[in-house]
């Protein structure tokens, strides 16, 4: 078991003919992901190392049975690409693109609420289910199959924490980057709900950062709905107010969205919070027992 991507994933990549799009699509395929199609308007009929390219998502779905989309196009085309994938009936859309205008994200989010598709990202590293499928840019070589579900707003911080856990012998059911933008398509709560229902996952690790209130909302949800242990890390204790710290969504506004408030909210609901990535892996050992 894993969540969202696995051996049944049939991936179509929008932006597959771009430099980055080609590189990562082929890496995903090398890992074992079933990459069935690409979409680039005007390049239908071509192929990328044997992967057929279509003009529209609709053609790709009809001819290959694609059930998962990865969006890799530049920011000004990304919202349109997500909406097209949804219109073509693709249930899961993973968007890697960073820099999409916030109002575009707002419209996309509110539109998808009415339909059936799930969006993960934008501005995220994708989803890896070790041993099964990798969709996105997560360096899979550091991770193996296991019982820790990891969900994070940040890419490299996920690798850091995943690697600390790996060094203590833990593997992962799935690793999900929900992205660092102000309007993520999926929240911590959405992913925690899936990990709670996933038989392979025994511990859920959530990795948050300053800005917004998604961590506080997750704390309330966990207290009411989650039976599995949840462990958290929050980045940005030293971030000054009013400054965007790299991610568009990572900003303390006035006194709102601080790391301290998030850690407090989580701890108040019984979620343990590691003070640094190493401590997260130490707490994981306490919860699950030593592996090495």
């Amino acid at each position, binding site marked *: 078991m894993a969540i969202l991507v696995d051996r049944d994933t049939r991936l179509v990549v929008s932006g597959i003919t771009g430099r980055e799009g080609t590189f990562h699509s082929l890496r995903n395929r090398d890992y074992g992901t079933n990459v069935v199609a690409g979409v680039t308007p005007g390049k239908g009929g071509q192929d990328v190392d044997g992967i057929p390219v279509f003009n529209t998502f609709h053609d790709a779905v009809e001819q290959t049975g694609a059930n998962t989309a990865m969006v890799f196009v530049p*920011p*000004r085309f990304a919202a349109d690409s997500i909406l097209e994938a949804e219109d073509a009936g693709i249930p899961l859309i993973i968007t890697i693109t960073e*820099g*999409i*205008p*916030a*109002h*575009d994200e*707002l*419209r996309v*989010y*509110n*539109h998808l609420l009415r339909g059936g598709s799930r969006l993960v990202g934008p501005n995220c*590293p994708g989803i890896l289910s070790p041993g099964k499928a990798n969709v996105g*840019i*997560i*360096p899979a*070589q*550091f991770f193996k199959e296991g019982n820790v579900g990891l969900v*994070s*707003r*940040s*890419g*490299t*911080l*996920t*690798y*850091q924490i995943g*690697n600390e856990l790996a060094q203590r012998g833990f593997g992962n059911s799935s690793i999900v980057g929900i992205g*660092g933008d*102000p*309007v993520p398509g999926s929240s911590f709560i959405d992913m925690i709900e899936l990990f709670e229902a996933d038989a392979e996952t025994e511990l859920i690790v959530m*990795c948050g*950062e*300053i*800005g*917004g*209130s*998604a961590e506080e*909302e997750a704390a309330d949800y966990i207290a009411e709905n989650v039976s599995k242990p949840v462990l958290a890390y929050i*980045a*940005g*204790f*030293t*971030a*000054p107010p009013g*400054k*965007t*710290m*790299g*991610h*568009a*969504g*990572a900003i303390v506004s*006035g006194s709102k969205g601080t*790391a301290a408030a998030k850690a407090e909210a989580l701890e108040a609901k019984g979620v343990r919070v590691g*003070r*640094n*990535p*190493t401590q997260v892996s130490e707490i994981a050992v306490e919860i699950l027992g030593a592996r090495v």
Partner: protein
Amino acid sequence: MDLLEYQGKQLFAKHGVPVPDGRPATTVPEAVEAAEELGYPVVIKAQVQIGGRGKAGGIKLAKDRHEAEEHATAILGMDIRGYTVHELYVEKASEIDEEYYAAIVFDRSAKKPMVMLSRMGGMDVEEVAETDPEAMRMLHVDPLLGLQDFHGRRLAFESGIAEDVVRPVGAMLAKLYDVFVREDATLVEVNPLLITKSREVVALDAKVTVDDNALYRHPDVAELRDLSAEDPQERMAKERGLTYVKLDGNVGILGNGAGLVMSTLDVVAQAGGEPANFLDAGGGSKAEAITSAVEVILSDDKVRAVLFNIFGGITRCDEVARGLIEAFEQIKPDVPFVVRLDGTNDKEGRALLAEAKLPNVHTEATMLGAAEKVVELAK
């Protein structure tokens, strides 16, 4: 991107939001000329990105040429809570009857725009929200539907504003919503929203934040970027396409990925150090980007030691090592460096550094070990 008051008002005027007549000025003669053109009385206002200008003496009424000159001289160059005043806005004085508050904010939690209205304007809204929460009325708008007339009417009636201005205030909210959507703003705030003695509705202040990611759609706004207000190191980093935030400490920090860099700052602080900056070299950094980043970090003369914290995914550690070696050849830094390379090609990267025998470069295997070492060296 935060706009200055007069820049926000220019956007307001473009979308039909009534604002008093005014002119920006960067020198005393310019300010006096603007005042003469507008006719007295005028208000001379400091243009800085910080609240509390009035209390700090940055907003003054001038009744004649002499007063205009006197106030412009006093306010230009003034320091308002750490911000130096480089620009003035000279505005025709308004006859104030009532002061309300209106705002449209990007509600990240609800993932919808939120429109706010209060009959208690002209003061600190956070204070109003605490002392009299009922005085602040708010509602969410479906971004696919947009603000409808009934939204504005409902807010206006509920907020208890004077009945004769319910409709014009509702109309004002609709125009502010236009600014919010069409200019890709994440904040539009008017405090105070003025009711004049002749019962006209006017935006007396403007606080507008435009989404950086949408600036490509607004070249006119992108051009307004006020470089004089930015920190020189931040400006240098921006020109080089690096994500850099200046902080107060003496430990220079470079990492890859925003989350990892934030975490690195935290770990350095936990080890008893004070970070000098946030610098995200981004994914897949090539050697030149690293060299460029080192230059930016070292341009801050408070920096006593530098920490490189890299977890290579797409970024290759050997590229980072090459960039650092190149930077040492070009800049010959006189402060110690601590380098932690982990992830893709980490062995190759460490081998390159060992071979180069750079003076005063220490390699550490873990993030915590590296943080402790750099804090010790910065002392």
